[in-house]
């Protein structure tokens, strides 16, 4: 057995691309896509275009960062879209209807940001608890809230669209700092912190160890259960933030629509970004690039008059191609 491994792994060592090159592949695709647009898309080079694209991609990136970490442990989180809906439904209830007994005031605004995010995090922790404590397969465990979560959001709002005007949320949705949209700053900060956590902290290393070989991690004394619960909680927290951004942009909250299909967009971004769905690896920057590719692809198709429906097919083709490339690279 070990014999077999050595003989094959020697040549394989030469075939495996170093990590920057793997990332380089994703970056190259993004570059080509940009180049194509520079040449073929009219009015592509404008701040307007940049901000449209960035604004649309922010929520995907934020959720996909959490998803990358969950996937690195060998899990998956299907509940992210529903958790966005819960957080999105909760915020207007707090600042507009005084759900927590405080009327429109700075305190209510602060609670309207904090409480939904914390609630989403707790739901995420619940996912993690199911996975860690009862060893339920992550796809099944998070399916629970995927289904129930949106229901909870709809019950909270009676299924009604909640339109609102709130200055604090207006800033989050449409404000700019140094000319750059606020949510883009937020996204950049989250990507930066997550990259640092995965690369430099104890938690990041333990995350990868659990995903890379759970039995080995257990025998090395790692608190596997706690690590997993935390990672789902982080995913929930990031979903909560993404939910707030969505309602802030729209100045309204619709429990039926907030975060709909987000889980698949996020998983797609992770896959295109080069993080193996089998766990043990996490490339946050790859995920960022993956999300940008998917977004830019959709923009390119739309700006060339190809309908959104067809764009979905192209999106699927890109995911398939990305996963295929990974498979080829990993084959012995």
């Amino acid at each position, binding site marked *: 057995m*070990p014999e077999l491994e*050595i003989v094959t792994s020697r040549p394989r060592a030469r075939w495996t691309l170093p990590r920057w090159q793997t990332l380089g592949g994703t970056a190259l695709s993004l570059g080509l896509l940009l180049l194509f647009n520079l040449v073929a898309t009219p009015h592509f080079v404008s701040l307007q275009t940049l901000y449209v694209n960035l604004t649309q991609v922010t929520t995907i990136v934020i959720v996909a960062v959490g998803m990358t970490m969950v996937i690195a442990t060998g899990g998956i989180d299907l509940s992210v879209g529903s958790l966005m809906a819960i957080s999105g439904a909760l915020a207007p209830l707090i600042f507009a209807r005084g759900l927590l007994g405080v009327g429109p005031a700075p305190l209510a605004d602060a609670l309207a940001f904090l409480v939904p995010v914390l609630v989403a995090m707790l739901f995420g922790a619940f996912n993690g608890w199911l996975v860690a404590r009862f060893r339920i397969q992550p796809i099944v465990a998070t399916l629970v809230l995927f289904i129930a979560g949106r229901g909870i959001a709809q019950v909270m709002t009676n299924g009604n669209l909640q339109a609102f005007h709130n200055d604090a949320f207006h800033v989050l949705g449409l404000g700019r700092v140094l000319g750059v949209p606020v949510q883009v700053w937020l996204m950049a900060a989250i990507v930066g912190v997550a990259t640092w956590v995965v690369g430099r902290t104890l938690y990041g290393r333990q995350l990868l160890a659990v995903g*890379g070989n759970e039995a*080995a991690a257990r*025998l*090395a004394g790692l608190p596997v259960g706690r690590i997993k619960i935390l990672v789902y909680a982080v995913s929930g927290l990031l979903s909560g933030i993404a939910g707030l951004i969505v309602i802030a942009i729209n100045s309204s909250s619709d429990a039926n629509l907030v975060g709909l299909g987000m889980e698949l967009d996020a998983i797609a971004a992770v896959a295109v970004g080069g993080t193996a769905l089998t766990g*043990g690896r996490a490339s946050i920057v790859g995920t960022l690039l993956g999300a940008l590719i998917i977004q830019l692809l959709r923009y390119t198709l739309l700006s060339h008059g190809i309908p959104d429906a067809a764009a979905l097919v192209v999106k699927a083709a890109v995911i398939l191609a990305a996963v295929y490339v990974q498979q080829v690279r990993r084959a012995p």
Partner: protein
Amino acid sequence: MTDDILLSMTGIAKSFSGVAALKEASLTVARGEVLALIGQNGAGKSTLIKVLTGALMRDRGIVRFEGAPVAFRTPHEAQAGGIATIYQEINLVPLRSVAENIFLGREPRRWGLIDWRRMHSQAAELLAQFDVHVDVRQPLGQFNTATQQMVAIARALDQQARLVVMDEPTSSLDDREVALLFDVIRSLKARGIGVIFVSHRLDELYAVCDRVTVMRDGMTVADQPMASIGKLELVAAMLGRSLEEVRAFGATGFDEDVPARAAKLLEVSGLRSAPRVASVDLDVHAGEIVGLAGLLGSGRTETARVIFGADRAQAGTIRIGGDEVRFAGVADAIRAGLGFCSEDRKTEGIVPDMSVRDNLTLALMPQLTRHGVIDQARQRAIVDRLIQRLGIRLASPDQKIRELSGGNQQKVLLARWLCLAPKLLILDEPTRGIDVAAKAEIQGLIRELARDGLGVLMISSELEELTEGCHRVSVLRDGRSVAAFDHAQASEHAIMTAMAHGPVEPAVSHAGA
């Protein structure tokens, strides 16, 4: 030799992106001959076998099978051509029945449907030839490795194989099962079927092989009748060293005295953990290597896991340094100064995609952090020191651990515990599947560590390792401690008798009882 030659491979060369794995390899097998193929890790045995079985294409060289030149392009072609390969990790379908596995793809049919009755009776018949009597309707996965191997062999024979290649078939078998496998090999031989037998265990080669081919650095360096070559010469040929050097390597000689009764590190009594551990008594002193012997399924690994806090004990006591402990989990055991290297490096040891550096410090890492952030300078210093101390051969500590050889992976796993400065190390088959040189190094290292005061509990299936590498040997049988020997009493015969039959006369009291 004569026209009895079944297979001849000559001048085989194979390179992987410019690196030669095989340079000038050759090999012949006669009908009814059992050929031992040996060599260190990386010598090219596996590559040669893959070339033979069509898993790899050769760059140069001639392969003749039954007199005609052949070039199999896929393992399937080789199988159809009469060459069957039995891997240690069996490539059958564990959830399907034994009979289905034997006839997979060639099920006997009747009116277009599978003729289950005929399939079951034929399968039972085939297996009966090897003295294997099992319910062939049960899923294959329920049976032990030995039975699964027999099923693989039966499948090969039913496909009219004329040559059977066995790649380390015995590494997960216990002695009884090995004996059974050897009987099967002898019966293959009697039918004129050629066998290529790859193994790291020299004793086995002498038991069953007619001739031996030794490979080193991609070349065939020796080809002799088994009877005409001694063990030491074999080792020398594999290592490319002179006989004197091999002797100096310490193939024998463990004349260290049992350390003057130092503090009792570990004391286990009446340990029970159903279903495998019934009643185990053990003790280990500081600076002592205690061997834990027993057949597969005797509860050795399970005992180790309970001591390490990975599984729960239902009864009995464990004392560490005199104080009774009840570990709630592995983390508690580690805090108490224990370390445990699992027998299965691949599934329970390494994190394959992580760097050597992170793998080595996996258990230590919490102590290397400041506010949750890893102190990389300190990590690097510790890793570098251990790599040097243990002689781990690698390109860079940032290399992924899966790219290392088995022996070096094992050293990294040892280092994972050593950097915690443990008091007691539990090693489960620390030298399994590792080439001769690395094995000697690891054994030497374990001794050195013990000399420095570390207590070692070593599970091993190799009698030589137990008789020569341990201060004391404790024997388990069906989950019970049945005997304990001092170094002087621990003969291979005594240990085997205890493993097979239980306590021996004169009755030896349990260690620590």
